[in-house]
Structures are given as C-alpha cells and as structure tokens.
C-alpha cells in the first residue's frame, strides 16, 4: 500500500511540476510577428493622404481606447475612419441624407503606386444610420503595392469606382468617390494597410504617410491621430 501511495504522490507532483514549467511551449510563439509590427513597423510604400483638401480623423491609433478597429479584426487593426469637416461639422442639413455630408461624392485617390487586385462597385449606399452588415466593406478597392503591403479603401459611393482589377495606379490618381456603403453609419472613408489581399489572412499594418499637415503642422512622415485635421498641402 505504501508503494501505491508513493507512486501516486510522485506522479502527481511530477505532472504538476511539468505542466507549470512549460508555459512558453504551451502558449507558443504565434503573434511574435504582430508584436513586432506593433513596435517596429515602418511603412514601405510611399503613401499620400488619399483625398483633396482638409479632412478629419474620426478613428485612428493603436489601442481600443482610440480606435474601434483595433479588435476583433486583425487585418484592420490600425485602420482610419476619415470624414470631411467644415466649420466644425461634417454635414449641412439634418444628416438624414448622404448628400448632407460634406465628404459624400468627394474625390478619393490612390494613396500609393500599385496594382488593383479587388474591386466591388455595385453595393447600394446606406441611408445614414442604417448598416449593411451583410456586405461590411460595401464598395471597395484593394491595391497591391507589390512590396507585401495592400491598401484597402472601403465604403465608396455606388458605381463611383473608376478603376478595374489589373489596372496599375499611381499615387494621387483618382480611383472613385467617398460614399456610405457597407458597414457604415454615415459617409466616410475607411482606409487601412494589410499584409495580403485577403480579409482572413491579412495582418493589419501601421500606416505612415508622407508630407502632410496635421492640425496645420507640417509632418514629413507620420501616422494621423484621432481628432486631427489633416490635409496634403
């Protein structure tokens, strides 16, 4: 009987010791890439702000406090939501029509050189306040910058996209107009950079734009922050 008890106690202590001492192995190394991106990533593509005149950053940043995109969609972790604000407001009228919003129908440009790899252009624009959760991106394009970075521009106005899959685009070239399609409560541009063209495999990347003004201060290279007013020149 003593031998049985000794065996049981030995097994128990060995099992618990083994399990408590191999945390790193059990949790694994996945996510090291994400951590490194968060801490050190420098955008490879030369990026310009993808619009004309002054716009306002409604969502940006590297935490849930600042940016509702940060979770749970890994591919759009650092995404921006951008609207046009004039005299402190983003709309005229009561805001019940898309046309009330200053950015609706405004020109949008390719932020960097690349090739168009995805286009959807036939989704109806929403009535402000109503979401289309079935087609969350609505009308959108994906640009392959041919360096492992893919720009995703989302929520275009229906039928406003003027580029097609396979087209090469250059930085600043018009690609369509801002709209309110997809999972969007009001007209705005959603823009983010990711590692593949796919929503399921892409990992979100921080975006550093070049030569722009943030709250009237010239920025040679930087990431727009929430509530900033930004413009190219």
């Amino acid at each position, binding site marked *: 009987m003593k031998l049985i008890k000794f065996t049981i106690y030995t097994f128990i202590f060995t099992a*618990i010791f083994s*399990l408590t001492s191999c945390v790193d192995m*059990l949790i694994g190394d*996945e*996510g090291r890439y*994400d*951590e490194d991106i968060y801490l050190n990533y420098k955008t490879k593509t030369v990026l310009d702000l993808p619009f004309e005149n002054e716009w306002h950053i409604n969502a940006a940043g590297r935490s849930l406090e600042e940016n509702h995109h*940060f979770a*749970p*969609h890994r591919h759009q972790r650092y995404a921006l939501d951008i609207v046009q604000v004039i005299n402190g407001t983003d709309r005229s009228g009561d805001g019940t029509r898309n046309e009330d919003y200053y950015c609706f129908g405004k020109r949008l440009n390719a932020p960097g050189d690349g090739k168009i790899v995805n286009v959807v252009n036939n989704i109806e624009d929403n009535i402000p306040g109503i979401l289309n959760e079935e087609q969350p991106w609505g009308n959108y394009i994906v640009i392959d910058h041919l360096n492992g970075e893919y720009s995703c521009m989302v929520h275009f106005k229906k039928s406003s996209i003027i580029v097609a899959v396979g087209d090469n685009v250059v930085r600043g070239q018009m690609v369509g107009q801002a709209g309110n399609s997809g999972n969007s409560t009001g007209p705005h541009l959603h823009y983010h950079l990711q590692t593949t063209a796919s929503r399921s495999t892409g990992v979100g990347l921080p975006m550093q734009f070049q030569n722009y003004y943030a709250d009237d201060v010239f920025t040679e290279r930087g990431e727009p922050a929430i509530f900033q007013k930004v413009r190219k020149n």
Partner: protein
Amino acid sequence: MKLNRLLFTTAILSAVSVQSQTTPKKNQLEFSTGNNFGFLKNLEFAPIVMYEYQGPVYKLNYTRTSKNKNLFEVEIDYLKAELKSDVLPNLNNDYAKVGIGFSYLKKIYDDHRFTLNLGLQSQTNTSIYTNKNTTFNQGDYFTVHQEFGITGKLSYQLNEKQYLASKIFIPIVLLRVTSAAAKFYALDNYQSVLWDLEYGYKLSNHFDLKAKYNFNYSRLQVSSAYRELQHQLNFGINYKF
C-alpha cells in the same frame, strides 16, 4: 392530537437523521475559492504573444450520485483579473470569465478504494474583455466557447477520512462565437484539456474540506491564434445531504 403529530414528526425526523448519518449522501454541494494563474494569447483581440493574468477564482459545484454510483455534476466558475503584458503594457485590459459545465459519468469500475467513472460533458465558457477607456468601441470584446467532449473521473480512498480524486475533460468539438465570427471546430484545429486533481478530508458526515488543483489548456489553430493556459489552486468546503 397535536401531541401525537409532534411525536410522529419527531420520530420521523430522528429516523431520517440517524439514516443520514449512516448511509452515503446522494448530493454534494461544494463552494471553493482560490487563485488563478493564467496565460492568454488571442490575436483577434490584441497583437500580444502572451498576456499574463492572476486573480481570484470562485467555484460552485453540485454532484448527485446515483445508487449505482453514476455521477451527475454541474460546475460554475468565475474569475476576474487584469490581462497584463510586459512588452505592450498600454494594451492591458480587464478580463472576466464565467464557465458552466454539465457532465454525466457512468461508473465503470469500483472496489473498496478505486472508483472509475466515464461519461460526457458540455462546457460553456464566456470571456469578456473590458476596458473602461474604450469610449469609441461599439461594445466589449467577448468570446463564447461551447465545448462537447468526453470526461473521466478517478477516485481513490486513501483511508477512512482522506481521498484523492482526479477528473479530466477532453473536448471533441467547439462552437466558438466571438465579436468577429462564429464557427465550429473539431480536434484537428482545436485541442483542449481540463484536468483537476483534488484532495478531500472528511470532517463529518455532512462536511468535507477540499484542496484542488486545476489545469486548463486550450489551443485553437487558426490565423488569429488563440491559446489559453490556467493553473488554479482552490480550497473549498463540501456539504453532503
């Protein structure tokens, strides 16, 4: 008449009381509390290789034992802690997890000292990640894991007053619902084990004291990887009736 009723009631209660002190109890209600040492990776939620968290855990367990020593168990547990990362401390978050498990275990083997039960278990775990500063978030991030699998329990009577028991649960299928998606997974993508080991000391016919160690591990092999490891040490009291 009243005296007769009083005497009759007293006699019945005495009989029940005597019987309850001499026969095994069918029901057990256990409350235990202790500390949880946890490690978490959830790339859907944050770009962190490993969060660590530590905090109190509370458990309530009900077990019903049939005449044939088959077991029906329900266990509810709750823990609350702060997810911490040394690498990115600005991404620390509050974390709460509630679990509820139902299991039915049929007696397979029994002698004076050893009892072995095998059966099926349903385990539901809900985790909520909250951050009081998420003013722009549309709501807290959550995950719900519904698991179904096989379970086994081995009990060993050390002597008249002391015993050891160990229970293991291996999920076969997982339904995972998160703020982002809902999907089924099987053993090829999802591996998990919940193992506990308890030591019990009989205080009286109605009460036991227990010390318990829990090892919980889950690994989901998807692009937004999820892994969680918990070591829990608990102390509890068991009421038998």
